[in-house]
Each structure stands twice: as C-alpha cells, then as structure tokens.
C-alpha cells in the first residue's frame, strides 16, 4: 500500500503497478516528459519556443516544464493564448493563465477572436445554430496559433496534447476514414511542408490525462478542471468515453493504441508527404485550395477583416 520507493502514502499507481508518493510521482512524471523531449528531439538548442497556453491543466503543465528546461539553457519561453470568447469558460481560464504566467515570470501574448475578426465564438454560434462548434473553433485557433507563434519569431510551438488526446485523434480518424489526418499526428505534428508552418511538438505525448491532472493538482497550479461547454455530446467525447471504458477493463489499452500507431506512422507520413500545399490568395497562409479555411469562413460571412498585428 505504500510508495515503492519510500513507504510514504501513495498518490498514484503506474501501469506497471508501482505505487508512488507525491515526491516520487512528480519525479517520475518530469523524468518521463524530459525523456520524450530528448528522445524525439522536440526542443533543439537554438529553438525559439512559444508554448500554446489555454490556462488548463495540460498547457499549464507543459509550459511549466518547458520553461524549466529553457531556464537551464538561459533562454526564455513565450506563452501564446487564443481567446475565443467562450463565456463562463475562457474568461475563467484566461485569469488562471495570467496568474500562472505572472507566478513563473513568463511573457504572455493574447490573441482574441473578437479583436481580430470582430466576433466571439459564442456570437458566431448564436448566428449558426447547426454548425459543429469544434470545427469552427479548431480551424481558427490552429490558424492563430500558427500565425501568432510565427510572428513571435518561433521555430517551435509547444502544445499540451496528452496521450488521451492522441488516442482519441487516432480512433476518430480511423472511424471516419481520415487517415490523411493521422499522418499529421505524432510527437512532432505535421506531414505537409510549407514555409509558414511552425513546427509543433507535444512533450506530454506519452502522459495519460489522469497523470497530467494529478501533476497539476500536486503542483497547485492555478487551474480549474473544467470542460469547454461546447465539448458535450461531441464525437470526441463519445470516443473518449469508449477509450476510458476499455482502459478500465483492459489496462494498457491507451498505450497500446499509441504504440501500434507509432509503428505505422512513418509509412503514413511517406504516403501523404507528396501532397503539395499552396498559399491562400487573401492572407498568404498555407492553404490546400485557393483560400485557407479561415478566409473561406470569413468570406462566406462577409466579415470585414481587420488587419491587426498578430505578433
């Protein structure tokens, strides 16, 4: 019943059934994340790093750990937050993100849907009740993350995606026949090359969501464990529940999904690498068609594009 290393009260049982107290869990967690960074070459010595920070447990955890590594290299990290304007959710996590950055001495850059495009996600969804919120939010957030980090001079963008997120993505793509999207997954994201894409890395790639939550709780980060109100009833939520049910009955399922995926990822990347990608004729960002997805959305809405500085 006690910690396998020191006989203190345990707070976690690993997949190999090792019990860990608070001290030894924190060490185990950090060692595993640093190992992922090292083995997959996620942060090179000359990288200029921007961390995608939402104020939630995952992005706060990864920003904290990347900040520690860069401090040792006498370098700095900038945090980038995208404010979609989701009422009762983003305003709360925004406060947490600001508090966290102040505590850690990290510069925080905020980009807002409202300031850049003239609408919040809530306002957009009010006008379009049948649209899937995640499809709009995801497209605009990724666009702003890429563009914002590039204009901050980043050579790498760190995200807080964890093992559960990746397992869900893998299965969602499988179920929908979207293997070309799976080619973009992995500890280093992206299969297509474009000079405007910032390399994206996921140091928490092998960390289950429960372990990230425990780490954030034990470190007393200023985070609230709340879900986006638009996440309810989504396909991702159902797939997440399915995976968690399987994990409960058959421990190791999530890791198995990741391991088998990683074994075929090199082939997937080869298969989809050949696809050339052009530039949007309006904003110049990467686009598979004439317009990128964001400009396509804005053109459809006849929304005035306010030219704002991203960086």
């Amino acid at each position, binding site marked *: 019943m006690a910690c396998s290393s020191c006989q203190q009260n345990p*707070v976690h049982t690993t997949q190999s059934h090792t019990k860990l107290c608070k001290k030894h869990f924190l060490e185990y967690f950090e060692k595993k994340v640093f190992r992922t960074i090292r083995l997959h070459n996620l942060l090179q010595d000359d990288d200029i790093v921007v961390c995608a920070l939402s104020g939630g447990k*995952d992005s706060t955890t990864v920003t904290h750990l990347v900040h520690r590594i860069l401090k040792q290299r006498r370098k700095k990290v900038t945090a980038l937050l995208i404010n979609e304007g989701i009422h009762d959710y983003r305003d709360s996590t925004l406060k947490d993100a600001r508090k966290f950055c102040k505590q850690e001495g990290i510069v925080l850059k905020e980009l807002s849907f409202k300031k850049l495009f003239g609408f919040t996600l809530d306002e957009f969804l009010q006008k379009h009740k049948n649209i899937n919120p995640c499809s709009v939010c995801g497209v605009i957030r990724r666009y702003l993350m890429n563009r914002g980090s590039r204009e901050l001079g980043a050579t790498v963008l760190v995200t807080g995606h964890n093992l559960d997120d990746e397992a869900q993505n893998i299965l969602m793509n499988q179920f929908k026949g979207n293997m070309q999207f799976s080619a973009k997954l992995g500890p280093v994201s992206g299969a297509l090359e474009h000079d405007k894409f910032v390399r994206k890395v996921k140091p928490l790639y092998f960390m289950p969501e429960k372990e990230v939550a*425990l780490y954030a*709780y034990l470190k007393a980060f200023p985070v609230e464990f709340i*879900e*986006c109100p638009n996440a309810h009833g989504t396909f991702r939520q159902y797939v997440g529940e399915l995976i968690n049910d399987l*994990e409960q009955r058959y421990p190791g399922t999530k890791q198995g999904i990741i391991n088998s995926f990683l074994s075929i990822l090199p082939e997937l990347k080869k298969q989809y690498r050949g696809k050339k990608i052009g530039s949007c004729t309006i904003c110049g960002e990467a686009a598979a068609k004439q317009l990128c997805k964001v400009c396509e959305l804005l053109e459809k809405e006849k929304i005035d594009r306010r030219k704002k500085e991203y960086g």
Partner: protein
Amino acid sequence: MKQYLNSFSFLVQHMQVTVFIQRENKKKIVKLEKGATVKTLLRTLKINPEVVLVARKKTIILADTPLNDKDALELLSVISGG
C-alpha cells in the same frame, strides 16, 4: 431468498461518506458497507476511476484505500479543456 437475506441486514455494518462531485458541482451522501474502499464508492456512483482523482482532506487517495465513516471526499474530473 432475497427477503430472507434482507432480514439479516442489521448484522451488516454501514457507514456514510459525503462526496463532492466537482463535475456536477453537487454534494452527495453515500451509504456504503463498512470496510468499503474508494473503488467500491466509485462503482456505487457508476464513475469510471480513469476519469477522476479522489481527494480526502486535499490529499489524493487511491482506489484500494479503505474509507471511514463520515469521510468527506472530493471527486475531481481529470477530463478538462476542449
């Protein structure tokens, strides 16, 4: 048979624990058999242990931890974000 067994229910000792379920923002009082563990509690509430951290007096406890009468517990959802 069930009635026969129920007539001996006075021999089974019970306890009560108070649980605050963070995801629902609700407090519940749960009656359990003495000696029940966190795992028993979660099974009673039909909550998957994969999706919660359980805290007693702000200290995380594991699924095999025995509970005590009048324990006040907090169930924190690990699923958060978008």
